[in-house]
Structures are given as structure tokens and as C-alpha cells.
């Protein structure tokens, strides 16, 4: 036993994979029972495959970890010998669960199959990119322009899952045949999948070592209350996606625990409307930012269930600044400077016009109700009236010019899987699909395209710092009200389980607490 544990600990250290884990344990553990809100509809790897890396079935070439960096996973190394060429070196000795070797040819086949079948993969690869095998365990990719986001692309669960492309092609679209076919490389192999649950068993030949559990069951339970009740009734060990509102009740219930994890890569983001209303004035936008009490939102409104925003990005990301400060005096001075003076009812006025803003929220995010209420109170302290309006289908509603709003509160990921480019392109550039407020800053417009092909890490960091400075100091538009924290509800057996960072819920080391 001691020998097994030591070997495992050594392997874990060597692999340095900071997956969600409890203490590795012996073979006597029962299978893990998880409940999640989403249903895995089929074994179709191109539309449903992303779930498989979240629960220990599939793996990726790279992994995004809570230090905000990308680390090799199935790769041993990812190098960039030239600005337009990356070299990927695979670990030796990895096999698919069906026993076939994971060599460069197999990985190339998986990448090509993904590009042919997955809209997400196609959308992530720049035009002119060529993947090729350059050795038994080596691939290279060349691009016309530098492709700095490749590590993030390889770590994104919806892009390149490493699978046995030959076995997948053989089943056509009869995806059920992939159950038990061992097409992935992860520690747990799917043995059953239906409308209610997925069952997976340990893959004994797993490349990092023997999985800590004999298997796991993942039940699909859309109702959040039912997921919590399943834990209380000892039918599940871990419940994913609990609402923050459930935390007080869970904390008061013996035998269950509301666990918070690492910083997520997004949060509730505020977007200001520059095309209609008062926020066309940059001074007013700056005042609004300084009137926002980020500490109060995190600690008092959500009682620590979210993290305090200190910049647009989560603090664990290497390019995040710490430039958010709440300063009511400065905010008041900015409003005075802009000509907004307090009226008899405390609301500021200019030329007879009340300083009234409309906050846009949407019903799919119930946590926006307490957030918007708190923000109303915060702005009122400065003499800004804030009214709340709720739009169903927020993305479309905010792009519709006839809808009146000043600040939209939207849950978004500014750096999902460590990839920043999509957010910047989509939300900040003129013509971006989600440039809700018509933002058009000449410097940002130049910096964002430069970032897309900038390979030098120092220059990339400088660009991202500058964008954050512009958004706070000079030309505010998008800002974080908070940063989300990963969260789960667990029973006593898994009381030490930390919520999976970047949706990696199960690793080969996940086990009950000792």
C-alpha cells in the first residue's frame, strides 16, 4: 500500500497535473456519483465530445490550469522554433483506451477529423494552417502569420479532443457504437449512456497510473433542488452547478458542503452603451466605474460566493492588472466636472435633466437580480438613479437599437481556456458581433488585431495591460463587476473535493477524502 501511494505521489508530481483531486486512495472506494444539470445526448464526439474531458474520459494536448497558464497534457512539449511554426511532441507510451497507440499519425487524424466535422474546430484554426507529422511522436503546424493562441486552442475542450479517428469514422453516425469502444485516452471509459446517466469504469491501462476509483456515474438532473436533495439522500457525492442562492441552506444542512474553488475566467461583465443616452460622455463612464464597490459585491452581496473584480481579467491570469479602485470622492468630482449637480431629491441633474441610467439584466441569470439591486444602491450614493430592465435573449436584445439601456450586465468569459482573442474581437471591435454599446477606440482597434498575431509574450502582456488601462482610465466600456468562482456541493466523503478548474471535474486522482 505504501509503495503504491508513493509511486502515485511521484507520478503526480512528475506529471504536475493540477487536476481537481482529493487524496489518492486505495481500491476500496465505491464509484463516484455525480449529478449535473446538463444532459450528454450521445457519444457524437463532434457536438457532445467536450463533455468527455470534463469527467475523465477524454484528454487534450494541453491543459489550462489555475495558475492561468497552459501546460502540456498529452504533449510532452510544445515549442515554437520559428514565429510561424509550432512543434508538438507527444509523450511516449500513451494509448487509447482500446489499446491503439497515440502517436503522431493518430493525433493528426484526430485533428483533421475535428476540422472536417466540428464547427468549433474549424472556427479556431486560422486560414492556411497546415498540420503535418514530422516524427513518430512529433507534429508541426505552420501558419502564414504567427498563431500565438495555439496553446489555448489545444487546451480548449470544444476544439481538438484526442480520439481514435479511425474508430469514430467506422461507426458512421451510429454513435451508440462508440460506447465501450475506448476511443479516448482518459482514466475512465464510457460503458453506458442513456437519457438519465452516463457510466464509466476505470481504464486499467491509463498512462499516468491506476485510476483512484473503480468508476463513476454521472446522473443528468436539470433541476438544481433535485440535485441537492440527491446529495442529502445519499444518492450522489458531488452536485455540479449549484445556485449561489442555495449556499445558506446548504451551509445549514449537516452532511453536505458548499465548496468554492479557483477563480473562473469570467464573471458578470458590465457593458456601457455609448450609442444612446448619457454614457456617451467618457467622464460619466469613468465616474460610474469609480462608484462601483467591487468589494461589497463580492463579500456582502454574494457573501464570498464570487471573487472581487480587480480588473477586467481574473487575478490568476498572468496578464491581469490590479487597476480597479472604488473612489466615491473621485467619482463625485468627475460628476461635478461634467456638470452634474445634486438635485433636491439627491439625484444629480444637468440642465434640468436627471442623471438616470437603465441597467439591463436577463432572467437566465438569477444572480443578476441581487447584483443589479446592489448596484442601484451604490450608484444612488453618488446621486445616480438606476432603473433595472430585464431582457430575454440578452445578446440579441442589446444589439437591437430600439431597446433602451445604459449598462448591460452579462455573464461572459473574457479569457475562456486562457484565450483572450475571441472576447476582444467580439466585444470591443467595431462590427464585433457583441459590441453591444458601439465601442470604437482607435488604439484598441489597432492593439487587438496586433495581439492576434503577436508571438512575443512580453509584448502580448503589454498589449493586454494597455487595453485594461484604456478601459478603466481613458475610454471605459467593458468592466467586470465580479469574477466567478467554481462551485460544487459535496457530501462528507468528498468534503475536501475542490471544484474543477476550467471544467476539469474528474481526474485519475479524484477520490474520497481520507
Amino acid at each position, binding site marked *: 500500500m505504501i509503495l503504491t501511494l508513493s509511486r502515485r505521489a511521484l507520478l503526480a508530481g512528475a506529471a504536475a497535473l493540477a487536476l481537481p483531486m482529493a487524496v489518492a486512495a486505495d481500491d476500496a472506494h465505491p464509484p463516484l456519483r455525480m*449529478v449535473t444539470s446538463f*444532459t450528454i*445526448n*450521445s457519444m*457524437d464526439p463532434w*457536438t*457532445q465530445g*467536450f463533455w468527455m474531458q470534463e469527467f475523465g474520459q477524454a484528454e487534450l494536448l494541453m491543459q489550462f490550469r489555475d495558475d492561468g497558464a497552459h501546460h502540456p497534457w498529452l504533449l510532452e512539449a510544445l515549442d515554437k522554433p520559428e514565429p510561424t511554426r509550432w512543434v508538438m511532441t507527444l509523450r511516449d507510451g500513451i494509448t487509447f483506451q482500446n489499446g491503439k497507440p497515440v502517436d503522431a499519425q493518430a493525433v493528426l487524424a484526430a485533428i483533421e477529423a475535428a476540422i472536417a466535422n466540428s*464547427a*468549433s474546430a*474549424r*472556427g479556431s484554426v486560422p486560414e492556411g494552417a497546415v498540420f503535418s507529422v514530422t516524427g513518430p511522436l512529433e507534429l508541426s503546424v505552420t501558419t502564414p502569420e504567427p498563431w500565438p493562441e495555439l496553446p489555448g486552442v489545444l487546451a480548449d*475542450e*470544444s476544439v481538438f479532443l484526442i480520439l481514435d479517428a479511425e474508430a469514430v469514422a467506422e461507426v458512421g*453516425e451510429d454513435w451508440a457504437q462508440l460506447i465501450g469502444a475506448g476511443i479516448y485516452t482518459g482514466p475512465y471509459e464510457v460503458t453506458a449512456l*442513456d*437519457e*438519465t*446517466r452516463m457510466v464509466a469504469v476505470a481504464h486499467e491501462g491509463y498512462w499516468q497510473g491506476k485510476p483512484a476509483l473503480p468508476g463513476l456515474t454521472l*446522473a*443528468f*438532473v*436539470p*433541476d438544481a*433542488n*433535485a440535485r441537492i*436533495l*440527491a446529495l*442529502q*439522500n445519499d*444518492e*450522489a457525492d458531488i452536485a455540479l452547478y449549484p445556485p449561489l442562492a442555495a449556499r445558506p441552506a446548504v451551509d445549514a444542512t449537516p452532511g453536505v458542503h458548499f465548496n468554492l474553488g479557483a477563480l473562473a475566467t469570467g464573471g458578470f461583465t458590465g457593458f456601457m452603451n455609448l450609442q444612446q443616452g448619457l454614457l456617451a460622455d467618457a467622464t460619466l463612464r469613468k465616474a460610474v466605474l469609480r462608484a462601483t464597490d467591487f468589494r461589497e459585491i463580492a463579500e456582502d452581496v454574494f457573501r464570498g460566493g464570487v471573487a472581487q473584480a480587480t480588473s477586467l481579467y481574473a487575478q490568476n491570469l498572468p496578464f491581469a492588472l490590479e487597476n480597479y479602485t472604488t473612489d466615491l470622492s473621485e467619482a463625485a468630482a468627475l460628476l461635478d466636472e461634467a456638470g452634474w449637480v445634486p438635485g433636491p431629491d439627491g439625484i444629480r441633474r444637468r440642465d434640468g435633466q436627471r442623471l438616470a441610467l437603465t441597467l439591463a439584466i436577463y432572467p437566465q441569470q438569477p444572480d443578476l437580480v441581487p447584483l443589479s439591486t446592489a448596484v442601484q444602491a451604490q450608484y444612488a450614493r453618488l446621486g445616480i438613479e438606476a432603473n433595472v430592465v430585464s*431582457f*430575454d*435573449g440578452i*445578446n*440579441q*436584445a442589446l444589439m437591437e437599437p430600439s431597446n433602451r439601456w445604459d449598462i448591460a450586465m452579462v455573464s461572459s*468569459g473574457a479569457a*475562456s481556456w486562457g484565450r483572450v482573442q*475571441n*472576447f476582444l474581437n*467580439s466585444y470591443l471591435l467595431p462590427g464585433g*458581433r*457583441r459590441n453591444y454599446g458601439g465601442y470604437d477606440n482607435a488604439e484598441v482597434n489597432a492593439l487587438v488585431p496586433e495581439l492576434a498575431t503577436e508571438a512575443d509574450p512580453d509584448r502580448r502582456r503589454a498589449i493586454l495591460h494597455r487595453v485594461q488601462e484604456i478601459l478603466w482610465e481613458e475610454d471605459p466600456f467593458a468592466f467586470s463587476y465580479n469574477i466567478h468562482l467554481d462551485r460544487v456541493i459535496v457530501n462528507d466523503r468528498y468534503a475536501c473535493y475542490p471544484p474543477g478548474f476550467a471544467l476539469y471535474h474528474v481526474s485519475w486522482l479524484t477520490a474520497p477524502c481520507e
Partner: protein
Amino acid sequence: MARALGLRLIQGVLAAFGASLLVWLMLPLAPGDPAEMILQARRVEEPTAAQIAELRERFGLDQPYWQRYLLWLAGVLQGDFGLSWRTGEPVWDGLMRRLPATLYLVGLSFVISVAWSLALALVAARWVGRWPDRLVLAYTRVLAALPSFVLALLLLQFVVVGLGVGLVLSGGAGATLVFAAAVLGIDRAAGWTQLLRAGLIEHLARGPADVARARGARPRRVLTVYALPAAMLPWLTALGISLGGLIGGAPILETIFTWPGIGAHVLTALSVRDVPVIQAFVLIAALAYVGASLLVDALALLMDPRMRAGAVR
């Protein structure tokens, strides 16, 4: 009678397709871009314009709305309900795989609600104005005001978790079917009880009941033999009409009880505007409603000769 039923059948099929047309016409008013929502359901959080365009082309989302409806209708008439935008699976396969579980749930809840409302209404009418009647009235008022999902959560919290009876996660287990059907049935029975009670009280005060009592019939016989058959006709009609409500209410309860019926499938389809699945469900629900109405009509024709004569004329 056959002609009358035939006419009702034609009306029913037209009503079902009318419902599908209505839903199709309303869907463009629903906010959110289906292509974007489907991609997000596939974990493509920030889809590119090219990805959205590709999905639109694949599912014909670029075609005019009326054209898409006609294509869908032509497919349905040939038994092809198209592919789910979300999963890519044939819609019919997805629904048929889950339909039996929903039919078990709806069928059992219907039996429970009929038996429960009949029993409560007879008790209330037998002792009208006295404490059993007042108790039934109070009970039905509370139940009528209580949403079924609240009842379901209370049952799970206090019976399943509290008393340790049954399981929260059904996985298709029979015990959960009984719980879910009981909640759905008991919730629906409240209104039916009030309707039948009112009918029974009305017919207990009419001539035939008076004559029976004058001839020495016992109160129970007067109630069950003279008042009940006459009071049942409007109650049966209400049952038929409410069957659609049972099917409509099933998704929420299936979700809470993790019953593997159509419920969660349809709710997910609604959340991502998976129109082919929504349309097929609406058609099935409408046809079920029409089928139940036809059954009630047939029963009414059998029970009341005056309706048969009217139909022939």
C-alpha cells in the same frame, strides 16, 4: 354516430396542425438566435460569424420562415420530423424513445386524479355543508393554488429525504413514477373535484333524486345511481380537456423527479430554440388533446342519447 365522430376527427387533425402553425408563427417573436444558442449548448461560448453562418445553412435557418414551415409540414406528412438542431438526431427517434415513460406518467396520473377527484366529490356531496364537505373544499382550494412543482419539492424533501421512502434520482424506477404521478394527479384533481361536487349537489336537488328519496332509496344510492351519472357528463368533458394540461404539466415534474420522459428533452429544446423538437412535441400534445376530446365525445354520445340525435340531424 360514426359520422359525428368522423367530423370530430377531421376537426381534431385540423386543430393539431393549426396549433403547429401557431407555434411556428410565434417562434420568430421569441428572443435569441437559434444558431447562436445551439452553438453555446455545444460549449462554443463565443461563436464566430462563420460558425453561425455554417449552422444556419445546415439547418436552413436562412430560408424564409413560411418556406421552412412548408418544408417541415411536407416532411411531417411523410413521417419525417427532421433533425434536432441541438443534437443532430432524428426528432422522431428522440421523442419516441422517451414517449413511453411520459405515457406511463400521464396515464397513471390520470387514473389517480380521476379516482381521487371522484372519491372526494362523492364524500363532499354526501355530506354537503358539513365538515367533510368543508374539508374537501378547503383542500381543493389550497391544491388549486399550489403549483405542482412546489408540491413535488415538498414531497421529495419530507417524504423521500425526510422519511427515507424512495429515491430522488429515479433513473426510471417505478417508485418514483408513483410519486410523480401522484403529484401530477392530485394537483390536477383539485379542479375536477370542485366541478363534480357542484354537479352532484345540483342533481341531488333535482326531481329524479327527490322521487328516489320519496320511494325510500338510501342517500348513498341516490347519490351514486341518480345524481352521479347525470353529473358526470360535464366532468368527463373537463377530464378530456384537461388531459392536454396533464401532458403540458409533465415536463416540469419529469425534470424534478428525473423521470426519463419527454420533459427534460423538451425543456432543453425550448431553452435553445430547437424548433423541430418543439414543433413535434406540440403536434404530439395537440394530437393527444384531440384524441382525448374525441374519446370524451364518444363517451358522451354513448351516455346521452340526446346528443346522438342532435348529431344525426
